[in-house]
């Protein structure tokens, strides 16, 4: 028994026997049984299992392709099965002669070979078979012929292929043909309705108004981004896909490919004539928006396109930057518009929000920005631009004092609440008051943008009241705890007296027994 136990403990599990291959049609079976020169099978066991598990329809399509020798080698069959895709995708591949022919490593030169691993195959990185079969166009059935010309059923390459775009020596040196080429379909509302009726068809029109469009289409600047710069070539995915280069969380990286590369951006200037910086992405990643989008995964937070636009990307100028912020921070914008600062900012030609909060590196605003001393944002700006205005100083000081009191009060009460909760006291009323206080702090911070003491006070008043209430409730909870402790001490004293009384009674019993035992 013990021997068995030990044997079971130390026994190695026997290697699983290979699954018997299902009966395949002859042409496909011939490829599946292909062997290397040393006699080892070309298809791995996993690939054989994948093949055996394919539905009848897919097997037939692959077999037909093998029969016509377009699916031409066991190596190609191995490459297709290694893609690990749904049978429906294999159906698409098996009926597309372009892919079948260009994915055969035994009959295609590396330069034109689509491979699951282009680097290992010595092929062009753009000819990635895995990317191709994930492409939104490929999966919609547009296939290679959709862009390159010809038909998927062509046995040989027709002459019309590659005639839709400029000759090779031109098309790589001047890419201004690309937007128009993509727009053949994407600007055709009728055509697009057949694939994705919700997709806008104004990309080209917008692109033409963008800085990128201006550089590429008017100045033929090949460095300027066009469709494939952002969307890639053979692996284009829907922007909703997390693997897409234009998924919100990938946008900073995609834009950064050019904008964070000092070499690429060399020679480009801002409207003020200064060299265009290349630290935007780095700053953005550390900003409150970057952290929300990239770290917390909040897809509502803006990426580059959230402020600059995508197809119509432009640097927001002074006039429009505040409108960009207002898209999300509407209340603060309205408060600012009705404040005295609005006029002053316009006179100075300052970008409204950006002047205080920054641009790419916007941080979560804290109360330390507010105040009348020169180490605060308000105080510093007023010391430089609006010295003789005691009311402003008074207002800023009031904002800061009130917010500081509420925040410090919250800290103090929170610590108490935790302690009282551990003591088992009812902290629900305090929690409610603290929730009111939090709401008031948030509202008060927002109302700072009105720069009006009365507006601010209206929002802060419920907060100061909630703080006062929570302090009172904490006091009551402390009293309750004192009551419990005193009650316990009283009960213990009473019980100890009982214990002592019983002890005395026992001693008396023993004494009386001893007395009665004496002769």
């Amino acid at each position, binding site marked *: 028994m*013990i021997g*068995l*136990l*030990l044997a*079971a*403990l*130390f026994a190695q599990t026997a290697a699983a026997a290979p699954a018997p291959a299902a009966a395949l049609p002859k042409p496909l079976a011939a490829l599946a049984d292909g062997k290397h020169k040393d006699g080892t099978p070309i298809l791995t066991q996993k690939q054989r299992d994948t093949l055996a598990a394919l539905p009848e329809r897919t097997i037939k399509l692959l077999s037909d392709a093998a029969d016509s020798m377009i699916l031409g080698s066991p190596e190609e069959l191995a490459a297709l099965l290694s893609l690990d895709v749904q049978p429906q995708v294999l159906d698409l591949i098996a009926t597309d002669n372009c892919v079948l022919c260009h994915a055969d490593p035994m009959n295609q030169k590396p330069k034109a070979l689509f491979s699951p691993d282009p680097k290992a195959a010595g092929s062009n990185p753009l000819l990635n078979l895995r990317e191709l079969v994930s492409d939104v166009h490929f999966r919609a059935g547009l296939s290679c012929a959709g862009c390159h010309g010809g038909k998927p059923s062509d046995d040989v390459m027709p002459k019309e292929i590659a005639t839709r775009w400029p000759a090779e020596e031109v098309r790589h040196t001047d890419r201004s043909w690309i937007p128009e080429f993509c727009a053949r379909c994407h600007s055709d509302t009728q055509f697009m309705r057949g694939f994705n009726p919700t997709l806008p068809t104004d990309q080209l029109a917008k692109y033409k108004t963008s800085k990128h469009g201006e550089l590429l289409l008017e100045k033929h600047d090949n460095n300027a981004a066009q469709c494939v710069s952002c969307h890639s070539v053979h692996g284009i995915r829907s922007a909703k896909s997390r693997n897409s280069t234009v998924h919100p969380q990938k946008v900073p990286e995609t834009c950064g490919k050019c904008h964070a590369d000092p070499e690429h951006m060399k020679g480009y200037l801002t409207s003020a004539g200064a060299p265009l910086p290349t630290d935007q992405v780095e700053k953005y990643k550390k900003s409150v928006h970057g952290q929300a989008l990239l770290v917390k995964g909040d897809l509502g937070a803006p990426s580059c396109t959230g402020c600059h636009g995508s197809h119509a990307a432009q640097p927001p100028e002074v006039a429009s930057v505040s409108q960009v912020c207002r898209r999300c921070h509407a209340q603060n914008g309205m408060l600012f518009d009705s404040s005295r600062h609005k006029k002053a900012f316009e006179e100075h030609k300052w970008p409204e929000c950006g002047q205080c909060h920054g641009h790419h590196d916007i941080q979560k605003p804290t109360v330390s920005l507010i105040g009348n001393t020169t180490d605060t944002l308000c105080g510093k700006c007023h010391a430089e631009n609006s010295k003789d205005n005691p009311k402003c100083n008074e207002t800023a000081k009031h904002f800061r004092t009130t917010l500081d009191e509420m925040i410090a009060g919250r800290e103090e009460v929170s610590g108490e609440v935790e302690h009282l909760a*551990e*003591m*088992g*006291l*009812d902290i*629900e009323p305090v929690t409610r008051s603290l929730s009111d206080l939090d709401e008031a702090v948030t509202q008060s911070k927002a109302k700072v943008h009105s720069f009006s003491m009365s507006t601010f006070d209206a929002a802060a008043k419920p907060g100061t009241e909630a703080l006062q209430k929570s302090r009172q409730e904490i006091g009551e909870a402390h009293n309750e705890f004192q009551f*419990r*402790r005193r*009650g*316990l001490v009283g*009960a*213990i004293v009473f*019980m*100890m007296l*009982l*214990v002592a009384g*019983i*002890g005395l*009674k*026992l001693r008396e*019993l023993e004494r009386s027994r001893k007395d009665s035992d004496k002769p």
Partner: protein
Amino acid sequence: MSVDTSNIAKEGGGVFGWLDRRYGLTPLVEFMKHKEVPVGVHSMFWYYLGGATLFFFMMQVCTGSLLLLFYQAGESTSYESIRFITTKVPFGWLVRSMHCWSAHLMIISLVTHMFSTMMLKAYRPPREMTWVTGFILLSLALGFGFSGYLLPWNELAFFATAVGTDSMKAVPGIGDFLLQVLRGGTDVSINTLHRFFGLHVVILPLVMVGLVTAHLLVIQRQGMAPPQGHKTAPKGMRFFPDFALRDLQLWLMCLIVLASLAVFLPYGPHIPGIEWELGKKANPLAPAYPGIKPEWYFLWIYQLLKEFPAHFLGMEGSQAAVLLVGLLMGAWAMMPWLDRRAQRDEASPGFTDIGAATLIFLGFLLFKAWDIGGGGIGDKLPDPVLTARICAFWWLGIASVATALRATVLHQRYFLFTAATALQIALHGLLGMQYLAAGGIALVALVIGLLVLRSRGQAVPEVRS
């Protein structure tokens, strides 16, 4: 037996006389007057543990009845009513806290009572049924704990119950059926709550009261077990009033401890498996979060389940673990019949050592289940190898001290089972061997040791002080 009613019309004797004439109480009083508790050989402390357990059980009945006045079982009422009890009902917090603390203290005193009974061999004839009823009472107490845990219908209870009931699946053959019966469906739901509520407040209390009565009756009928080697006690203490008053003193002390814990640690000592903070309401649709553990007295089973691989000896790992737990519990219940030397009223040092080894075995699993020394803080998961090592240091240390005390103070000489348990802990914790592999080796070593002892004639006799 009928009561003589011929003198019922007589007068005098006060209330007792009135009752005595009708119900014949005098023989009972005479019996109580002559009932004695053996003293003088072992510490009297061990004789009080049963009484302490009874006290905590009575506390459970009292506090449970008070909670029942406000508790409403239901999806939208269970959590809310417990919250109401702890926040709005005067002294409701105290009643709930005492109920929870008393439950844990009852298990502690029950287990200690049972181990002391085992070590003193009080289960030997003619008291086998006292042991068996005690064992069933322990099982019932565990059932009380398990069923009561779900009643607040909070997140922790919900998931712990889901994990706990899930282990039922491992019972060979009828596992799925048992799971369905226990849960009232395939998943933990409001049906489970109603079942557990019924179990907790009606079925288990009825059985428990019946069995406690039976347990007490056999004790009263047979008297308390005299120390081993004596058919009767060398010296006796009157049960009434001497022992009863001392019992009352202990009960008062227990009440002081209970009340103090309830006031200063109302939600338990914040150790996994000994905490009852209400937290969030259960949400059956929410995903279970990691680190959910059952109550401390089930943790050794929980850890044992974790130590088994997916498959073991042709069985599902969990099935094998449940089978092992069943065998161990069965052996524990059959102890009076397994311990043949004690049956002959001879010293049985092997079984004393089994008791000590069992404590080390359970303690090591408990510490491992608590991930002691594993360095799991916040989101960082504890390291199982480090946990095993630190727990091994702890329990090898405790085992060494305990063995040294047994050898020097109690003059015991039989440590084979303790040594085998220590060997398993050392192989697993210090050398990094798998828990079961280490157990297998320790088992082989134990069997060899037992065979060597047998070949020498018999086990080393226990030397008494």
